[in-house]
């Protein structure tokens, strides 16, 4: 627990030591909200409805998905790839704390840090632009929503971890990361609700595990999915989580055997 607190303090100090970087980062986030507000307003100028969404619903979607994105997608796992490639991993392997625990700790701190600021940014934005956000749903929906969210966070974590662990076998992890970044975020529902896609494409994309990350929790919170279907999807999500967990476990063990601590 003590190590966790120290890790927290260190990460926060790290962020704050780059003043300009930090300010620009948060500015960018807030600006993102402003920009997409204008974007969607423009799109709806000549249309009243796109697919299942009217203007209000789309605003709701992009603001809440913005917050969820910060929660799900903020991650420091890729640092592991850099450690492996540079040989710095050796330093962490000798620590009395398991590397995995360190990675998880940093991840949680990063997400917490992001989420806190994200909430402030969203609230400020909603206040300034008078967006209507109200969420009302039953206790059971809340539970399934939280479960969906948790499965999304875990899924993204293990996918990222698997890709980072490719560092054991190749020096250029950046290429797979780039592709995964585009594909995952594109099909996660972070930028747009997946059901505005034409029917055939929608069914394909919905079947991919990435739709669980943002789109599924959004569907639940907007009451656009019936309860039983939601439960089934969340269950399938956890299966995906387990699959990627198994994959990263396997890669870690295999990779460590090959690891020759070179590079320094």
């Amino acid at each position, binding site marked *: 627990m003590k190590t966790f607190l120290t890790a927290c303090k260190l990460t926060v100090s790290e962020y704050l030591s780059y003043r300009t970087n930090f300010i*620009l980062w948060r500015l960018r986030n807030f600006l993102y909200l402003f920009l997409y507000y204008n974007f969607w307003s423009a799109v709806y100028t000549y249309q009243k409805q796109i*697919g299942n969404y009217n203007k209000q619903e789309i605003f709701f979607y992009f603001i809440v998905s913005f917050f969820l994105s910060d929660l799900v997608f903020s991650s420091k796992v890729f640092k592991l790839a850099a450690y492996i490639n540079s040989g710095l991993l050796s330093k962490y392997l000798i620590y009395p704390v398991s590397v995995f625990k360190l990675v998880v700790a940093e991840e949680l701190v990063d997400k917490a840090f992001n989420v806190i600021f994200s909430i402030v940014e969203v609230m400020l934005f909603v206040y300034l632009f008078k967006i209507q956000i109200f969420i009302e749903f039953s206790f059971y929906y809340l539970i399934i929503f939280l479960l969906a969210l948790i499965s999304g966070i875990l899924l993204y974590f293990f996918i990222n971890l698997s890709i980072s662990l490719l560092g054991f076998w190749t020096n250029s992890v950046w290429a797979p990361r*780039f592709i995964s970044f585009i594909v995952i975020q*594109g099909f996660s529902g972070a930028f747009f609700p997946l059901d*505005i*896609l034409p029917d055939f494409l929608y069914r394909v994309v919905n079947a991919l595990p990435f739709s669980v990350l943002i789109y599924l929790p959004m569907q639940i919170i907007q009451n656009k999915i019936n309860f039983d279907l939601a439960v089934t999807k969340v269950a399938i999500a956890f299966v995906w989580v387990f699959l990627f967990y198994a994959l990263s476990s396997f890669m870690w063990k295999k990779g460590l055997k090959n690891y020759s601590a070179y590079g320094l």
Partner: protein
Amino acid sequence: MIRTVVFYLKLWWSFAQKSFSTSFYNRFSSILFLIGKLARTIIAFTFFFSVFSRLNTNVNGYGLNEIILYFLVYNTLVTLSEFLFRSVFEFRSKVISGSLDQVLTKPVSPLFSCLLTGADPLDLLVAVLLISALAVFIFLNFSVNSYILLLFFVCFILAMMFQAAFFISVMAFGIIFFEVDHLIGIYRDIQFMAEIPLRFYKPVFQFILTYVVPVGIIVAVPVEVLIGLFSLQNIIVLTVVSFFYFGLSLLFWRYALKKYSSASS
């Protein structure tokens, strides 16, 4: 003067060859990157198509065809910028590691070295595909003559000039504040707004995208030229804005270099 231009053209080609060779050496990553870039374009297209396919009125002269044209021109512009100015993305590490010093001791303009020496063949490939798609689409859906094409070409160059201005400013900013990535991120976010017709936006926002961060106008004017809906006023605005920001960026760059030379690393 001509000799200098020829020297730099030849030098650009030398650097481009090295950059191309590096990509070919790393076949695996290069192919993945290429797939990624194509995937990004295709996903974006699917999104825009889905959103606007139900646009049933020809509003302000803009139907689905015009929106696709916007999309193609925008992406060609952005991809060509990334092709030419790729080395800006490595700039931050140059400053931090001190490699910028090495650049400054060479008898080559530091601006050239930092901005134009990293031509990315993958972006070129994507750009070629986009240009082909653009050409085919224009030919099939719009009537153009050589005057229009020439005017389009000129406007496109002006648009690239503004892109250059932005990247130069980013590097200058990077020298002083050591921060480049988030700034580029912000620009990319704003730039994305220009992917749909400028006239769809509220007047205030249109103003911002024309004069404050001219990403809107640099896409809007070339497209308007192709559609045949252009106005002389808009072309003048584009010219003034591009030259203005370009000049400003050069001043900023010079200032940044001077500041760099006043601080010890």
